[in-house]
């Protein structure tokens, strides 16, 4: 009886010690930079490695976009370097090369030839109806959304997740409010991101038909854009988004009949474009119109960066 009371007292003493230490250490622990305590469940469980998983799920979403027809690490994936689901939104510049249909190459033996009957063997896109024969357009593209959401949750700093998700929500699913919410979340996680602001502008312009707001958002995106030096993919992608922002702003100015300002924006777009000739035609056209109306004063336009 005596000994059991001793054990009980010991247990209580240890519990008091634990609670006391916890109360004392907890505030200090929270201040530690490496602490995961304030993160979400993924951050607590996975730490920074969650970004690797995020990338996997992003790729998974693209595999779903192809209804499972997708290269593995053993296949030639040059035609799948840029996710097609992102490329088709117009949000990113394609880095894909090669033939999309034949990433597996011809079968090299009878066993491989036979095995190809048991997995998806045709290049399809969900927004075109997936593997079904009817390619009339489909809202099956919704199937990529869970993976994009998961990828976003795991890596909130990946802005492409937000823009791609918002595009498909808005374009194919007609869920404008959800798309708007996704972009706001993206902006919250990546303040001032010009990719997200560009997509938000498109949403205002195309879905809410609020061109003023759209122009303001694009202008903010243009202001936030910073050039990246170099010839790598990151620099190219950075230039591509600026080209799109400036082009949109140019189009908006042209629609508002602010020709000089439109020319300015198109020239800015041209300065970073991989295909400057395509924009030159528009600039020439605007300049001609401007010269034709030389006597009239140029309209006040938006301030470019």
């Amino acid at each position, binding site marked *: 009886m005596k000994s059991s009371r001793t054990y009980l007292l010991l247990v209580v003493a240890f519990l008091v010690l634990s609670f006391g230490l916890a109360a004392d250490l907890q505030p200090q622990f929270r201040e530690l930079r490496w602490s995961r305590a304030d993160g979400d469940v993924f951050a607590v469980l996975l730490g920074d490695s969650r970004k690797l998983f995020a990338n996997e799920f992003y790729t998974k979403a693209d595999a*779903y976009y192809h*209804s*499972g027809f997708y290269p*593995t690490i*053993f296949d030639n994936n040059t035609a799948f370097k840029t996710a097609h689901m992102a490329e088709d939104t117009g949000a990113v510049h394609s880095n894909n090369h090669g033939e999309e249909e034949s990433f597996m190459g011809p079968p*090299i*033996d009878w*066993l*491989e030839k*036979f*095995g190809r*009957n*048991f*997995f*998806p063997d045709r290049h399809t896109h969900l927004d075109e109806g*997936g*593997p*079904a024969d009817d390619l009339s357009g489909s809202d099956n593209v*919704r*199937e990529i*959304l*869970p*993976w994009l*959401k998961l990828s976003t949750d795991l890596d909130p700093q990946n802005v492409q997740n937000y823009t791609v998700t918002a595009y498909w*929500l808005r374009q194919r*699913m007609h*869920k404008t409010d*959800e798309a708007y919410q*996704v972009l706001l979340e993206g902006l919250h996680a990546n303040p001032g991101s010009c990719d997200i602001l560009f997509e938000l502008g498109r949403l205002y312009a195309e879905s809410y038909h609020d061109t003023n707001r759209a122009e303001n958002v694009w202008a903010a995106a243009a202001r936030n854009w910073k050039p990246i030096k170099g010839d790598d993919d990151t620099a190219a992608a950075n230039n591509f988004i600026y080209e799109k922002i400036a082009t949109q702003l140019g189009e908006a100015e042209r629609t508002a009949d602010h020709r000089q300002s439109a020319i300015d924006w198109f020239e800015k777009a041209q300065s970073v474009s991989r295909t400057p000739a395509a924009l030159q035609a528009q600039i020439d056209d605007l300049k001609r119109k401007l010269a034709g109306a030389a006597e009239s004063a140029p309209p006040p336009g938006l301030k470019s960066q």
Partner: protein
Amino acid sequence: MKNIIAVAGVVIKELYRRKDFYVLFIVTILICLVMASVNIFHDDKIVRYLKELCLLLVWISSLVIAVTTTARQIPAERENRTLLPLLAKPLTRTQLVLGKFLGCWVACGLTLLCFYLFFGLLAGTREHMWPVLNYFQAIMLHWFMLGIVVALTLLGSLVFAAPSSNSTICFVIIGGILLVGRHLDHVALTLPEPTRAISQAIYFAIPHLEFFDTRDLIVHNWPLIHWEFWGLAIVYALAYIGAFLTGACLVFRRKAVN
């Protein structure tokens, strides 16, 4: 045949009286239901991620059940010494091996039926599609694949004494085949001789379990596999089942039971 069926009957009874199956089945249901309740942009028609998750759990569960149930059959008979009164009866060792195989295989089939029934209900209620023939093809291929796994594990249980080492080795082999089996011929081409020849020999010798993994076709609503190829895959599975069982009978026939 009646002896084989009698042995198989005991194996089936063992499976449904143990907790493994129920635990895995309930875990699968719970995970799927929790995932189904997740709100993804207020769209309740999104289903493929759920189908994929459910099928993944079904595959993992079925492999776990097949390997662990089969791996312990003969070692447990030896350890508990029930093998002695059994073989003291007019039952040949071949009949015992075949009975154990049939029991494990049928038990796996019954398990698969339960799992796929749940899968079908889950997918059907959300998709409002009931591709019965596609499911039939998938279940049969899955079941015959499990037949290969059961036969392989049974052979392993006669070669390796401990069920745990046998299970581990079988899981590694099966996982390896499912993940890289399809690509081994391409990998072999990049290797120098004699590794290339060895890799190619392994490629042709291993049972290509990945043929039977039609999850992507089911998840993404692809059309039916041509029946001709489906039938050939079944024959392919039967050939490997036969080979492994023959090996198991040969090993067991020479083994002293004491």
